[in-house]
């Protein structure tokens, strides 16, 4: 069974139909990049997978678990309690465009927060693990710095370490490098590439075509709330079947190269 199965998902914000029947599979250990113009629903899709938003139709399962609802014996759906939603979210790591580190905690405190508060691990153990994670993103020497004392790239690497601290099955990245100065993009992509190589299942919304082409197993092009086209990155980039995909790629590539 695939790690992520998104089946015919519809999402409305009031009258605004944002996701119009999205279906998508991500196998365990795969990296799926999601491309598409601004406003096409990429962030919304990730937020639905993590049940930060509820969906109005369709279903999402992660590692075999139905997200956001419980199904009873008669096939009826029940809303989940906040505690159950929290438990589901803790299995998925999320990295945001604007980092969203907790400014009143040090880098170490940020990484330790979930293991201590959510998993109830002893502080010493959580600290040790957090230091290992900071080491892994190359920031062991910045453990006691506060987010405001770190560069954007360093903050995003701390955010990745923080998301990894709950040992998630799946990592979601929502334009993780879009808020960074160009010279800082590389260090974040390098950490993500390592993570992919270690076998983490990842869904990545990005405009970094080089990363998408090199690291991802599947590339998906979204526009106006639907998946227009998907395939291996080579197929999608070198031989797009749809006009919309071709147009988008031309625009993005002419910008970056």
């Amino acid at each position, binding site marked *: 069974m695939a790690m992520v199965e998104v089946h015919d998902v519809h999402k409305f914000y009031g009258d605004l139909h944002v996701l119009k029947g999205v279906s998508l599979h991500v196998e365990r250990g795969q990296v799926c990049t999601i491309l598409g113009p601004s406003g096409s629903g990429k962030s919304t899709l990730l937020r639905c997978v993590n049940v*930060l938003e509820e969906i109005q139709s369709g279903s999402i399962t992660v590692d075999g678990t139905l997200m956001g609802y419980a199904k009873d014996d008669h096939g009826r759906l029940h809303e989940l309690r906040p*505690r159950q939603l*929290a438990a589901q979210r803790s299995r998925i790591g999320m990295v945001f465009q*604007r980092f969203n580190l907790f*400014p009143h905690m040090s880098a170490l405190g940020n990484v330790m927060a979930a293991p201590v508060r959510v998993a109830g691990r002893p502080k010493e153990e959580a600290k040790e693990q957090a230091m290992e994670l900071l080491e892994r993103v190359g920031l062991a020497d910045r453990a006691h710095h506060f987010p405001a*004392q770190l560069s954007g790239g360093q903050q995003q690497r701390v955010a990745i370490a923080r998301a990894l601290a709950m040992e998630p099955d799946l990592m979601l990245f929502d334009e993780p490098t879009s808020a960074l100065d160009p010279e800082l993009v590389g260090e974040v992509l390098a950490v993500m590439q390592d993570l992919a190589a270690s076998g983490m299942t990842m869904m990545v919304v990005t405009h970094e075509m080089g990363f998408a082409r090199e690291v991802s197993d599947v590339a998906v092009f979204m526009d106006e709330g639907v998946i227009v086209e998907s395939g291996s990155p080579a197929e999608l980039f070198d031989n797009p079947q749809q006009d919309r995909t071709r147009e988008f790629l031309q625009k993005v590539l002419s910008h970056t190269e």
Partner: protein
Amino acid sequence: MSSKAPGAVNAPAVDEPPELIRAIPLPHYGRWATVAVLVVLAAMAVHGLVTNENYHWDLVFPMLFTYEIGRAIGWTLILTVAAMTIGIILAVTLAVMRRSANPVMRAVATFYIWFFRGTPIYTQLIFWGLIGVLYPRLSLGIPFGPEFFSFRTYDVFTAGVSAILGLGLNEAAYLAEIVRSGLGSVDKGQEEAAQALGMRPRSILFRIVLPQAMRVIVPPTGNETISMLKTTSLVTAVPFTLELTKVATDYGSQTLLPIPFLVVAGIWYLVITSILMFFQSKLEAYYGRGDSTTPGRLSLRGRRRQRTSRQAAINAAHTTPAATAAEWTP
């Protein structure tokens, strides 16, 4: 000296110190004139105070430190602290209820705030004083079912309890709005990041959102405390008769010399307000300071220092709007 950066007109020689600017300071004639006028006015005021027999300064100074006045100050402080404590706890509860997804909670909190802000505190205090008349006995039990215990209302709602509840419940309505604006000032992304980590709503509130909201909440709460100090003088409405204003006016009517006793009370209110203002400014500095301490220095200077820098970090993150101009520079 041949290596000249492109664009540099004339690189200064290293050993030659730069010539410092020595500008002639602006004359501040206006300031001096103002000071002169103020000194004259102040002298007139002091002269008027000291020479006016009706102030009875000979009575004021001995009265300042009597046991009775001291006890009245004690009661005033107890009322202030107890009412603010109840107010703050209830206010956080109300503010959270107003942000709740549960419409019943929101409605209850909105009604509470509407009611307690919409009626005069003096009237509310009179009602608290009359609660034993309205409900001579109170009981705890299941409606239409068994009673666990019951008591005479006035045995529990003594004047002191009524005064504290009256002040505290009223204050909560005002503080709730302050707390709510504080919670609202924290970037939505903070809550989202915490949710994505699997934190429960209670953790998110107490560990993530409230600490960042403090910067917005603390200064007006300090104001409210100073205001509460003086509002305690209204508890004669209950009637509670041991606090400062009531004790002072009672002495005034007994001795037929109201003015010196009011002066005594006034002096003490000013003293306590000054002390509160001192602590308020300390708290505001703590929650509003910009400070770019590096972690190295931080560990040397210990815990207090670290807290300052923690707050600086919050400020620098701009998740709460700047109450004071940010001096922080990266």
